[in-house]
């Protein structure tokens, strides 16, 4: 396969690292060479989280500026902030549900409008999709499945030599039994959105 670098950008406590791991393990199960990387520690407590999955024979555990083929944004502003990591012409799939920063909640800074965010991202790449991850996750009854919605969309997009089925199998194999049903539904909702987009 053509090697692919996937960059994850999210907010501490959002489950970005769990999603990273799930993608990496799904790839490994399908016989794809994988290296993943993450930074623990200060990334918790509501800070920015960056993590990486490198498929197809990379040795490096991180992605530098301008290297990511795909940016998976789990939060709009964090997608914008992570843009320098995307290679020119790279692709972005991102959640459209803002998580306000503390300074925004306190009225000291303003959260940019979705138009501004789209405009910013549009300057770097035309290949981007915003996915209503939270809205779709609510349909499963468990909002924490928003990350799975995004991954479902990603798998359905055909960017990897892996199918949605591979991802669904991985959810069944790797998640705690009580979480399987809602996550399967979330993945399918993400995939359906992608198919209709």
């Amino acid at each position, binding site marked *: 396969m053509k090697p692919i670098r996937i960059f994850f950008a999210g*907010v501490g406590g959002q489950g970005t690292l769990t999603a990273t791991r799930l993608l990496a393990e799904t790839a490994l199960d399908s016989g794809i060479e*994988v290296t993943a990387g993450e*930074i623990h*520690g200060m990334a918790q407590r509501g800070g920015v989280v960056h993590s990486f999955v490198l498929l197809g024979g990379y*040795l*490096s555990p991180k992605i530098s500026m*301008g290297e990511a083929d795909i940016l998976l944004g789990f939060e709009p502003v964090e997608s914008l902030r992570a843009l320098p990591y995307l290679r020119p012409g790279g692709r972005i799939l991102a959640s459209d549900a803002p998580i306000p920063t503390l300074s925004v909640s306190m009225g000291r800074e303003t959260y940019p409008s979705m138009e501004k965010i789209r405009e910013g991202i549009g300057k770097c790449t035309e290949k981007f999709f915003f996915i209503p991850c939270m809205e779709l996750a609510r349909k499963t009854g468990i909002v924490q499945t928003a990350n799975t919605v995004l991954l479902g969309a990603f798998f359905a997009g055909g960017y990897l030599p892996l199918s949605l089925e591979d991802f669904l199998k991985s959810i069944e194999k790797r998640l705690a039994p009580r979480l399987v049903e809602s996550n399967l539904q979330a993945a399918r909702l993400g995939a359906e959105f992608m198919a209709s987009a």
Partner: protein
Amino acid sequence: MNLLDSRAGTRSLLLGNEAIVRGALEAGVGFISCYPGTPSSEVPDTFFRLSKHGDFYFEYSINEKVAMEVAGGASLGGVPTLVTMKHVGVNVAADPMVTLAHIGTPGGLVILCADDPGCHSSQNEQDSRYYVRLAGLPCFEPSTAQECKDMTREAFELSARWQQPVMLRTTTRVNHMRGPVVFGPLSPARTKGAFARDPQRFVSVPAVGRVRHRALLANLETIRGEVNRSDWNNVYGRGKAGVIASGVSRAYLGDVLKLHPELKVKVLELGLCYPFPDDLVNNFLEDLDRVLILEELEPIMENEVRRICQQKGLTIQVRGKGKDLPLWDEYSTSMISTALHHLLDLDAPVETVCSVDQSNLPGRPPNLCAGCPHRSVYVQVRKIFGDNAVYSSDIGCYTLGMLPPLNTADFLLCMGSSVSTGCGMSKAVEDPVVAFIGDSTFFHSGITGLINAVYNRHDLLLVILDNRTTAMTGHQPHPGVDQAVFEGKPGRIEIEPLVRASGVNEVRRIKALNQKALSRAIEELKKASGVRVLIAEDPCPLFARKVLGQKRTKKARVAVSDQAALECVHTLACPAFYLEGEEVHINPVHCAGCMVCVQLCPSLKPETTGS
């Protein structure tokens, strides 16, 4: 993934730190001690999780020095031993470590030292390979998860055979990478050994130390011969330009060479990096006209190569630290690509980074969680002392108090320094000094500073923020935590009697979330002089929920959104608050129910939660 799987051949995606655990288990590790610290923590945490099912002995020690000493004892007793810590922990443990290298460690001792180039979660950036040279420790530097496992296992074998402690030196990217690892066979844990009494070797009085230093140097020369021939050090590629790389730089180099097959270089990869393999490197350099050294942080291999060139009369160009490759932060593929192009007198590819103006994006620094008892204490301390005190901080979540609006950290050195550095400050300035230390950090090395403060009659208000866990690094237990919580033996060490036994008379112990009690205690202690201690107790809300299984029974709601409520938002900076225009709201999902805001502001009211 089961790290205790006895079968060989399983292939799993492991965190570098989990791979280190597997490697130690395959080697039959019998004794593990540690002090947690990012990026090393998942090694001890994984052992702790497995300890109910494994035969090995595991402990969270009180600090790194103690961890090194108990590990040293077990190894002297003939048991294969692992001790783990982050780079700054090695500073704390350096004293016993250096002497252990002198007297040797018959059972085998592997020291995991996790460096943090880029300071992802550390107070400084240092290169522990200097310790390797200072103490005389053969040293492995893995670059993949598989190597994390294999090198750890090998380090145990070599350490036992050489009877010398061996360092496994990692960096954040390696500890926190995930990669496929093929398991080897598991060995039974060797938890019992025999101590071969030999005071002329193991009692390092000056007469013995003198002899042992020479024995160590002789040992290292023998080991150097093995390192010269070691399979962990590989040569590949061809050309007149050479590259020598170690650690994660090897991974970056590998990717760059794959991406740019036009870059023709001869490569020497060092996995077993110390004692430096002089002969191997000398042979490698022979046909080259230039060589580039790839190593993060200090030019340690570079200096070794320059030494060899000088000794052997080689006139090749040695390149390393400089414009392309800095002494700080991490390396990357792009950095190494640039340095390689320049090595070959080629123009480096121009990087096109796609970017937008980020100056107006709202920042997202980490902050204290909703319901964090530290916030409650900080708010009350600031209310009483304001800017008319100097705030001495320490290592833990509570260092986040440095951010506005709390502003309760003015300086910080290292674990335990809040007490002693605060004492020094109090002699130098007129303003009172208030020091903050967490419970785990107090046990780590705050106690010695406190005894010193009492004995030397310092003037300091010490606030012990006792949240009953080591919160920052992932809720590890410490001597103040009842191990029964983790199905261990019951029993904990109380902080207050320790403080009193240290000679402190002015002691208050209150609930950290009780604003009135805090206010009274701080006012009283402000009026007193000498060493005063406030113990503010309330559990970390994450720990209470995840480990203790405590459910939230109350939450706060905005009864009236008025000026007082708005002020409360700006005083507390609690992430459960949000504004819509000027209207104050509390996110019912985020509110942890600490009720601090309700105590501060009449416009906010408690309500019981349904669940």
